[in-house]
């Protein structure tokens, strides 16, 4: 006798791909919905910073950040093709079905940050998980003090979520700073690594009563942490989300364990203070 599938944590739910949008080279956004409306409603209770296990039947499963905010109507993933599963997802067409389990992980404690300044620092596709928090914070604008976004990409053609960037640039309650490592002919904005934005004339990063969200490639992460510390940020004020090879997402398979933490259940969101206490290099 089989039990109701809700008890089986390894059981994916069927999702339908609605449409695919190109973001940058090798990166696409996949809009989807669950076949079962009840599943969709249950899933929509996710928190910014959580993730889901995406199933491509016959290829495998991979963990994916959730870029949408729970305050938005649509559910989607933004995925770079790096391995066999992500490549399989990239071949899907609207109407195709695949599997999703989740949401998993702790997520960012956005409610705990009510009354604080929020500083978002993203590098490259590190904007994917932070997008969720940014949209969430802007949807609850009155709950937070200053909201600042610092986003850096390799070049102008590596900028993602262009529509969102334009909205943030217009500056409705948000200070938005953009940079690229290498400009092209048409680029009129700032050039330099993302940390260089902190020193840009006119930029004032609030330190007191502030939480800094940092997400990006390892090199960017290391330098931004140093920059923030130089500005006076404590390690407990810096939060990030870690990624690891994962198979189960529910704390059983053992692959994502870093020191004392299972990234899938104890994370993926950690403060920099916690990251240093894990007992292993990230």
């Amino acid at each position: 006798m089989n039990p109701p599938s809700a008890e089986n944590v390894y059981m994916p739910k069927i999702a339908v791909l609605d449409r695919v949008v190109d973001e940058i080279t090798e990166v696409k956004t996949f809009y989807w919905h669950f076949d079962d409306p009840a599943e969709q409603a249950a899933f929509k209770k996710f928190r910014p910073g959580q993730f889901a296990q995406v199933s491509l039947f016959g290829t495998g499963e991979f963990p994916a950040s959730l870029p949408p905010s729970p305050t938005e109507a649509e559910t989607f993933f933004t995925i770079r093709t790096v391995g066999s599963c992500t490549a399989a997802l990239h071949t899907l067409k609207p109407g195709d079905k695949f599997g999703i389990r989740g949401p998993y992980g702790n997520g960012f404690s956005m409610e705990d940050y009510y009354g604080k300044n929020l500083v978002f620092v993203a590098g490259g596709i590190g904007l994917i998980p932070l997008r969720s928090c940014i949209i969430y914070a802007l949807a609850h604008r009155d709950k937070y003090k200053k909201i600042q976004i610092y986003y850096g990409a390799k070049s102008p053609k590596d900028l993602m979520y262009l529509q969102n960037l334009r909205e943030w640039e217009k500056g409705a309650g948000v200070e938005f700073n953009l940079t690229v490592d290498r400009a092209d002919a048409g680029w009129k904005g700032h050039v330099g690594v993302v940390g260089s934005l902190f020193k840009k004339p006119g930029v004032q990063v609030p330190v007191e009563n502030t939480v800094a969200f940092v997400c990006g490639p390892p090199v960017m992460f290391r330098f931004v942490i140093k920059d923030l510390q130089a500005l006076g940020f404590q390690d407990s004020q810096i939060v990030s989300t870690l990624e690891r090879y994962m198979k189960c997402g529910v704390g059983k398979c053992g692959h994502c364990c870093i020191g004392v933490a299972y990234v899938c259940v104890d994370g993926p969101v950690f403060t920099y203070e916690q990251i240093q206490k894990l007992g292993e290099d990230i």
Partner: protein
Amino acid sequence: MKARIVHRDDVLKIVDLLRRQGYEVVAPFFGRGRDTRFDNVTDENRDQIQIHLPNPYHPPKRFVMLQIERLLRIERNDGLIQIEPTYREPKRAIFGIRSCDIAGIWHLDRFFLGREFRDIYYEKRRKNLFLVNVVCSDPERDIGSECFCVCADTGPAARDHFDLQLMDLHDGEFMVVAGSPAGEAMFADPIFRKGADAHVAKRRAVLETARKSFKPSTTSWFSAAIRYVSAGKVAEKTWEEIGNRCLECGGCTYVCPACTCFTVSDRSVGPNEVERVRMWDACALGGFTRMAGGHNPRKAVHDRRNRRFFRKLSHYFIQRELSMACVGCGRCAAVCHGDVGMPSVVEMIRREAAEMETHEPAQR
């Protein structure tokens, strides 16, 4: 816990009773050479079941945590996807499981059934499992040179988590202790007789002799190693030394009764059908943490060795599961070609850390 006495000639009748109740019984047998193994009991091999023999290298863990297990069967038909979970949950009894392996299964219980997510595949199989523990009481045949359950506090006689426990009193009789209602229900059969005070005294004496039969090994430093590992006092060079000796075969994890890691893979089993299987994985292997795209946060061998021993020895994890992921069976020591099984590692950690502690004040 209730106890009864069984005559030596009647011990294997417990196997018969279980089989009559519909259990698939696995029990230890001699293989070729000095090899021993757990195998299914049949009418043909029933008389060859061994009570006293070296504990098999391949632990009975595989009967609750299958080495390869199908999780889901996925069928695709005209854009329809049907996912069926497949559960293998035979009514099974393990006869002759040693106390260390009882502790191993208890650890798996804590790990797979504890905390926020339960593993339903494990749970279903575990529910149908009946455990007949045999206490290692024969110094010659039961207790190996690598055994250190006395240091891991799991043996020679398990205190609980079995259904029945057999102890050879070495005078033609066995004492049988019931550890569960299912075990106690077995006592209804006439082979189980009431004991006397003399049996209890005998049990105590046998256990005392057994405890003294373990080889004096380095593992008495277990607690010190836990302290050093938990406090992060093990020097990088110690891990490097341990890593240098590791041949990255993964053997220690495959013979470990308390290792839990697995990987998941999809495979095609028909034109429109795939199955999702999981199989044991080992943190000793280089690809264990390698992400798509090639980034591997744990590249060096000694990082991976560090991982395994940190997972087993750190106070944090012992508290997290309320059970320890090393049960003192000594299998890793027996199979390791580089001599970095648990006992050696414990000794290396203890020696190096103690040296550092001694020298630290002088350096200041």
